[in-house]
């Protein structure tokens, strides 16, 4: 019987080549199954491979299941987590909380990164994205969102994606940072303490300590309204004693 079991185990390890529809999990230091609480803990050097996603974590994975153990609905991972999905999403962070059913992902820790179709998000705090609703939020130092035509930096970046022909585009944005928000497009470099973007109206609004730089032109004020289609903008000052300042530099080749 002993040899039978050894052979069985040996072959089972061989047989554990994943087929379509199956999820394969391997760990170095075992699994704790909590049937009453409906979750299991996977310990050290965890690898999860499924049709929908692949996950690697160095330390710990807490996987919640619904009815049977196979019905995993949420995965919380710790320690150099790398999560890739078949929808083109990649999440890297110290801690990743992935809700499979709701397609909600939260990444915590230094150097957190989330890349999804044409958009890259970085933060030393938290990145939250819901793939179903398109809502996202970046909070913490070095929070940064880069898409094909815009680069946004701020302590809080809150917004919503829309998916147009498999490409995620930013539909709306709210950005704030007491030290200053920065928004860069191909032609404009914008600074403020707060910014709001609305794709529907193609308008970026900047609030407080506003500075807009285009080519050699620099305008400073308290409020700016920028049309992203024709890149025309209006800068105003809230206080009567404060004036809008425009700095023009001569181009070097002129």
């Amino acid at each position: 019987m002993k040899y039978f079991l050894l052979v069985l185990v040996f072959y089972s390890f061989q047989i554990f080549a994943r087929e379509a529809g199956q999820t394969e999990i391997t760990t170095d230091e075992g699994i704790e199954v909590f049937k009453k609480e409906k979750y299991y803990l996977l310990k050290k050097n965890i690898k999860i491979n499924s049709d929908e996603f692949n996950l690697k974590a160095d330390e710990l994975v807490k996987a919640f299941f619904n009815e049977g153990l196979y019905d995993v609905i949420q995965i919380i991972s710790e320690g150099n987590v790398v999560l890739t999905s078949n929808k083109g999403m990649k999440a890297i962070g110290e801690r990743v909380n992935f809700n499979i059913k709701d397609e909600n992902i939260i990444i915590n820790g230094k150097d957190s990164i989330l890349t999804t179709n044409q958009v890259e998000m970085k933060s030393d705090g938290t990145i939250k994205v819901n793939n179903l609703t398109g809502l996202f939020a970046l909070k913490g130092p070095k929070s940064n969102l880069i898409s094909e035509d815009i680069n946004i930096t701020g302590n809080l970046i809150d917004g919503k994606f829309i998916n147009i022909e498999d490409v995620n585009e930013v539909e709306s944005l709210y950005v704030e940072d007491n030290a200053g928000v920065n928004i860069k497009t191909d032609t404009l470099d914008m600074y403020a303490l707060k910014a709001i973007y609305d794709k529907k109206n193609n308008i970026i609004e900047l609030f407080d300590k506003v500075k807009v730089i285009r080519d050699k032109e620099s305008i400073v004020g308290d409020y700016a309204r920028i049309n992203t289609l024709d890149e025309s903008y209006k800068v105003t000052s809230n206080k009567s004693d404060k004036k809008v300042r425009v700095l023009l530099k001569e181009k070097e080749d002129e």
Partner: protein
Amino acid sequence: MNKFLNINKKALILLLFLFCGIFAIAILFQKFNFQKSTNEIIDLNPSFDILNPTFTINNDKEKISVKAKQGNFIDKNLILLTNDVHFESDKFKILSDEVTFDREKQTAKSNKNSKFESNGTEIISQGFRLIEQGDIILFNGKTSVLLSQ
């Protein structure tokens, strides 16, 4: 001299050898029988305490039956179950070759390769621990899980 009083020496020696032979055969036969009975006695005293031990773990939600081919008492409550050890409930089955079972605490521990099977789930590990009356199962060492829907 009377003819009948004459002893046939050859016949006497032959008779003597015959008796000796029978005696030797009788001794050998007796010795063989003794060895056989000793072996039988040894066979009746195997190296385990319980043959086909069966136990049950009861918790709020399920009844887990514990079966093995052999069992040895480590102490009053601890039993070393060996050979074809099964933990089985309506929801899962664990197969191992050596498990220490605690009758009083209703816990089990194994450091040998183990296989867990449940609906759509297979877990192979380098041992396991069953605690809190089977509500928590810990799989030790390098572990592999296959989930199928």
